[in-house]
């Protein structure tokens, strides 16, 4: 094959990646926009290890090569992830685009990445030098800057599923399909016997990287709903400070206003 490799195992893929100057091609839906890139493409669509969907206790192992459509149709896929994936682009894109590619694109607008952030997912990265697992938060170093070492491929997303339901999710786009997020928000709260056992929020498309402030969310964890109501103002103020949206096709003022509206609505929905 001219300018391309189509490995049929992860081992083969990693060997090729290490030995050649190749560009990994997962779904192609980001890579193929714009000018052709110089060099050979490493096609990952025939690597079975990248297609796994396997539950191990509370953690769902998702192959980085799973397409959005495959996950939407998979019975194991948590409802929150399914909803976020269903809102992405349109069917033809979803049939090819992969969660690994969505993450590797490095954008804070990535709809699947938002869910992985709020769930505190981990990424498995592999190369011929070995394997490592890091929190997704640590993977993003800045806008389109990733902690991806030479010759590494994202192989799996390890998704903790314990707290993924009930959930609050809102994507704000300019139309109902084929809409890039102007802003997105995911919120998870679990209240057991009046005590907040878990609280996690994440904001997409507002800063260079998906905004996940588990330190602020921690303010509410362990509190009763009544106690949480007392510190509601503090919690919101902390986020008001933390959210400093970049200006894009919409103003930062708008982004911030919507973020705070959704955050407040999330609290209210949980009785806070």
């Amino acid at each position: 094959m001219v300018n391309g490799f189509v490995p049929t195992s992860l081992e083969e893929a990693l060997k090729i990646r290490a030995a050649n100057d190749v560009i990994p091609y997962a779904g192609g839906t980001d890579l193929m926009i714009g000018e052709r890139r110089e060099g050979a493409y490493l096609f990952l669509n025939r690597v079975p290890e990248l297609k796994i969907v396997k539950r191990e206790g509370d953690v769902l192992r998702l192959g980085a090569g799973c397409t959005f459509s495959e996950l939407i149709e998979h019975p194991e896929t948590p409802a929150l992830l399914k909803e976020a994936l269903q809102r992405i682009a349109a069917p033809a894109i979803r049939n090819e685009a992969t969660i690994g590619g969505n993450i590797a694109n490095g954008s804070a607008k990535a709809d699947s990445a938002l869910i992985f952030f709020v769930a505190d997912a981990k990424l498995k990265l592999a190369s011929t030098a070995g394997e490592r697992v890091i929190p997704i938060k640590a993977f993003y170093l800045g806008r389109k800057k990733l902690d991806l070492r030479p010759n590494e491929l994202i192989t799996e997303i390890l998704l903790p599923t314990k707290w993924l339901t009930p959930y609050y999710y809102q994507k704000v786009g300019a139309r109902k399909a084929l809409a890039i997020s102007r802003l997105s928000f995911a919120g998870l709260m679990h209240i057991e016997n009046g005590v907040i056992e878990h609280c996690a929020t994440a904001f997409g498309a507002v800063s260079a990287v998906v905004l996940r402030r588990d330190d602020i969310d921690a303010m509410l964890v362990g509190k009763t709903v009544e106690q949480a109501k007392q510190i509601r103002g503090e919690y919101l103020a902390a986020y008001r400070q933390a959210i400093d949206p970049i200006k894009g096709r919409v103003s930062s003022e708008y982004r911030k206003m919507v973020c705070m509206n959704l955050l407040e609505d999330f609290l209210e929905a949980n009785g806070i």
Partner: protein
Amino acid sequence: MKQISKSVIKKDHGVKARGSAVYVGDFAQQDMLHGKLVRSPYAHAKILGIKIPELPEGYFTVGYRDVPGINEVHIVKDDTPVFAETVVEYIGDPVLMVVGPDEQETERLAGEIVVEYEELPAILDVRDADTVFFDYSFGSGDVDKAFAEADKIYEEEFETGYQEQAYLETQGMIADFNDGKLTIHGSMQCPYYVHGALVKAMGLTPDRVRVLQDVTGGGFGGKEAYPSILACQTAVAAAKAGGKPVRVVFGRREDMEFTSKRHPSLCRYKFAVKDGKVSAMDADAIFNAGGYTTLSAVVLQRGLISAPGVYSIENLRIHGTAVKTNTVPNGAYRGFGAPQTFFATEMMMDHIAKDLGEEPLDFKKRHLAKQGDATSTGGKYHFPVPIPAMIDEVEKMSDFAQKRKEYAKPQPGRFKKGIGIGLWFHGAGFTGNGERDIIKAVARLHKYADGRVEILVSQSDIGQGIKTTLSKIVANELNLPLEKVICNNPDTDRVPDSGPTVASRSLMTVGELLRRASIRLRSEWKEGEEQTVEEHFKEPDFVIPFDIEKFEGDAYPTYAWAVCAVEVQVDSLTGTNEILGAWASFDVGTPMDMNIVVGQMEGGLLQGLGYASMEQMAANAKGRIRNNSFSDYLIPTAMDVPVMQVHMHVEEYPDGPYGAKGAGELPLVGAPCAYMSAMEQALGKKIYHIPFSAEDALLRADEKEDI
């Protein structure tokens, strides 16, 4: 339903459904050369010099020096150059074309061309404009007296933005110069416009220029004048190509950034109200023409003529200018100036009504024009104005009155609903005396010996189904099966000039010529013989001739009418809104084919709704269009479509074929008015501009201004 209105299978359905219809980009390569335009990166600059690198064998460039005729593209005024000569007037103004056998190499070389510019100050905002391309005024009655005697005076300013036609097939042309004859084919609405432009630019006699329309993937006005420019540029290249054909097909980004769009507008209105009625209207409209005049004169004319809307207002002072800015020249887009002024007028009426404590619809009803009333230019509404009946139809379809009352109550939840209504018209046919004095349409029928009849007109089917509807007329009069009527894409070597495919004139005007020609052919029919009959346009007797200098008389022989209600739901947390329903009644006279006409109504309505909301296009600080892709310029998808219900209200127009009148543009024109009226109810705030975004809804809703 009249027999003629019964839907048939469209003549071009089959080839398009199978994917075998040949658009300009589909022609086989063979020895085809590719052309790539080199464009100005500056909004306003002097061209000091051009450095062309050594080009590989088979590659060459063309510029203004290669234009064999006159370096002007004939549109209305001919100030658009084929290639810029000494000055560039907008970012994207073409300076050169690089031509060669490999498309990618041609593009690469285009990037290597060095043009030396001296930047000049650029005017990007109409408010800073210092060159007025066109200035028109007209009026009636005594406006000053009415203002002096008014109970209250209202002054408001409205702004409308760009709209990009976003036809799915981008612009493209193929030119071929062989044996002294130039043959050009491509995506276009007006083959004879292209023909005239080529004759001038190439310095050829008319018989040495042949223009053919290829299957065209949408136009909406964007392919009315622009193809003339591209055709001249491509022809110049073909003249230097040693007999090889040259093709230029734009990519989406190039098309979005640099081809003509809807004129952004700024309307300053002043209304006088006495005894609860509008007694005078003083309107000033500024249309952003862009860097060259192109079609701005005519767009401005229609916009101004339409300014008083569907209302009879005794005292009028209408003034408008089309001003130059160093931005992409704006041109024709479905509605052609009317959407801009109708938006301002309908919103103004809404605002006044609310201030007077009256329901906008009730207030508007008291001002409606009636048959026999004078039009804005002192012409006459010669035919019924069915707006009252159409309001009833739409009220029923949409449950308007009930919802209007319901949504007027406080809505404490997250979602706020609103419903609004818009009333509008579209002048059917070419503005003023243009049809009679400039176009002078000629339509021809040719009967073959075997009894098949061919329609010979210059109308272009751009999706609106004109091939089918014109064929139905001829088939009906000659009692022939539809398959025996031939209607090919126009070829200037074979068809007379029956005028452009614009202004909602093709079916009404050319269709009527063909109907008359068919009647004549029928009466002169000779079995087994070849025959040709021809019909020439004759202005109907009732038309009060239009004086373009004074803006007096019948600007249009008749009008198509529309009433539309739109219901919205706004999310107060995000400002986004959902259209819950759009219900409309349209009067375009007798539908020539129900499915085709309803398809036009639905398509146009959706374009109007997009124009008011998601279709945002702006230039950056340097004057370059920023939204240059489908991911950034958003048009409605199938999921954005509300419940859409369309009703055809038929008022037959006696001078149109079987009672038909102009239809194509009508549905778009006033859709934004209904939509924004609904948004005003949902938000409880006044709206002064479109497109109106989610950000506008959220930030504006936050402002302390209640209505």
